[in-house]
């Protein structure tokens, strides 16, 4: 590898993660990647590198998969287990309106593999599994090629694993279950994967984008990372913006960017927007006015009952019906249940039926048990699937309360066909 010293990119400049992405859609080659970033700092031995863990802790990086857990703390938990660890790159992006992780894997796979190598050094791992949705063929091919290109320079065993294209398959215990030869369904915890995961080894399951940040933090340091974002939520983040905007797609934002600015980046709304779904299908509906005056930061979203979650945002047009669309999402999420836990299997089905009934606008009454069901279902599954679905439905009933009242009286203002995708697209 070239040992020539690279200039450090300007700390405040964006994009960082997407800086190398080629306009022709081809994946960045290893030569191009090294030319831009230079090689990773050499790994110090086979044992966990606690100095590296400390570096990540100092960066304040939080996981970009949805839970926003401090990455340094997770690395430390795995590194402290005292046994040979395993690293899993979580590229199972089951969220239908998110494509940021597949974009990274497809266009700059070496950045992600670098991040996996950094994580492996930090926790003392030799085996790295790269889990990617089976139907994300572009991402899969790019990762396979990138691993071959590296020709074992990392002295790691990289294995690519195709993950069934189901919503829950990306949940970390579901991935561990799959890698242990089981179905891609969540398992009851504890033990958590960091205690006992793949082949009973302490296992670090880390989101694709989070690892890409590690690749940059290891090279340029925590202060560089913190030059954008806020003190508590530092760095840049990839956000998928879909819906009624002129240029939907994946954007790299400084955390804390006003949603209004992101809309402007995307060419503004195509039609008037009534609401935003923030955080993907486990996320929260926010009415347009409060949403547009907030910024993309958990600290700002939390008072509105929302969070960045999976970092996918859908701009919902005024002429569509939020109740009808949420009913479709509730049905999708009920069908995507792993069908293992009664409250999720039976409860989400009942919730979806109640909403479908309401959406048809011929019910003349709201299901009186619905509020109690929503209260009772959350928190009673082995994973967070029911909690996420409940959050979505609850926020819809709040934000689309007027539309809801119309439905009860037998009318609906919505027009047009289905908007929010309920199956992950193929051929990504």
């Amino acid at each position, binding site marked *: 590898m070239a040992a020539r010293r690279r200039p450090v990119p300007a700390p405040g400049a964006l994009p960082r993660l997407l800086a190398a992405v080629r306009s022709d859609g081809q994946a960045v080659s290893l030569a191009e990647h090294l030319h831009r970033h230079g090689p990773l700092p050499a790994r110090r031995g086979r044992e966990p590198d606690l100095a590296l863990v400390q570096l990540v802790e100092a960066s304040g990086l939080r996981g970009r998969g949805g839970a926003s857990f401090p990455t340094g703390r997770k690395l430390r938990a795995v590194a402290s287990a005292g046994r040979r660890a395993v690293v899993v790159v979580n590229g199972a992006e089951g969220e239908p309106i998110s494509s940021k992780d597949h974009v990274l894997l497809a266009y700059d796979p070496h950045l992600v593999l670098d991040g996996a190598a950094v994580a492996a050094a930090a926790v003392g791992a030799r085996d790295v599994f790269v889990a990617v949705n089976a139907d994300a063929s572009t991402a899969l091919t790019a990762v396979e090629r990138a691993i071959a290109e590296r020709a074992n320079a990392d002295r790691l065993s990289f294995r690519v694993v195709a993950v069934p294209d189901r919503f829950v398959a990306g949940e970390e215990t579901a991935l561990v279950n799959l890698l242990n030869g089981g179905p891609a369904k969540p*398992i*009851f915890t504890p033990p958590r994967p960091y205690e006992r995961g793949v082949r009973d080894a302490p296992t670090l399951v880390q989101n694709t984008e989070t690892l890409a940040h590690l690749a940059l933090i290891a090279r340029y340091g925590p202060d560089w990372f913190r030059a954008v974002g806020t003190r508590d939520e530092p760095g840049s983040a990839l956000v998928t913006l879909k819906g009624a905007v002129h240029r939907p797609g994946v954007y790299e934002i400084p955390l804390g960017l006003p949603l209004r600015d992101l809309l402007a980046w995307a060419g503004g709304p195509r039609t008037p927007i009534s609401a935003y779904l923030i955080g993907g299908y486990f996320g929260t509906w926010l009415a347009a006015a409060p949403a547009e005056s907030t910024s993309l930061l958990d600290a700002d979203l939390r008072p509105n009952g929302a969070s960045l979650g999976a970092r996918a945002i859908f701009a919902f047009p005024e002429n569509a019906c939020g109740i009808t669309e949420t009913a479709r999402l509730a049905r999708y999420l009920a069908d995507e249940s792993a069908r*293992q*836990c*009664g409250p*999720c299997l039976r409860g989400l089905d009942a919730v979806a039926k109640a909403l479908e009934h309401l959406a048809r606008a011929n019910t003349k009454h709201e299901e009186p048990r619905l509020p109690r069901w929503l209260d*009772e*279902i959350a928190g009673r599954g082995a994973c967070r699937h029911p909690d996420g679905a409940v959050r979505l439905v609850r926020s819809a009933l709040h934000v689309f309360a007027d539309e809801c009242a119309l439905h009860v009286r037998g009318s609906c203002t919505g027009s047009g066909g289905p908007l929010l995708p309920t199956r992950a697209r193929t051929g990504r």
Partner: protein
Amino acid sequence: MRLRVNPIACDGHGLCAELFPERVTLDDWGYPIIDPHPITPELQEHARRVIDACPTLALALALIHNDSAPAVPHGPRAVQLRRQR
């Protein structure tokens, strides 16, 4: 300590609610809703009987954690139960 159900193992037989109404009720589909309050020393014997009576061995006593971290099953018994399945 509090009572915890493994929702994957639970088949909704409902014995727990019948035997331990102080801490367990059933939802509309027959699955247990566990009162998160601690199992007081007076209730502990009672709780253990319910744990033993569950046909799918889905119940266990778990230590209460003050933070949001998931509770850890208490003692070797809980761990052994999970491994049997």
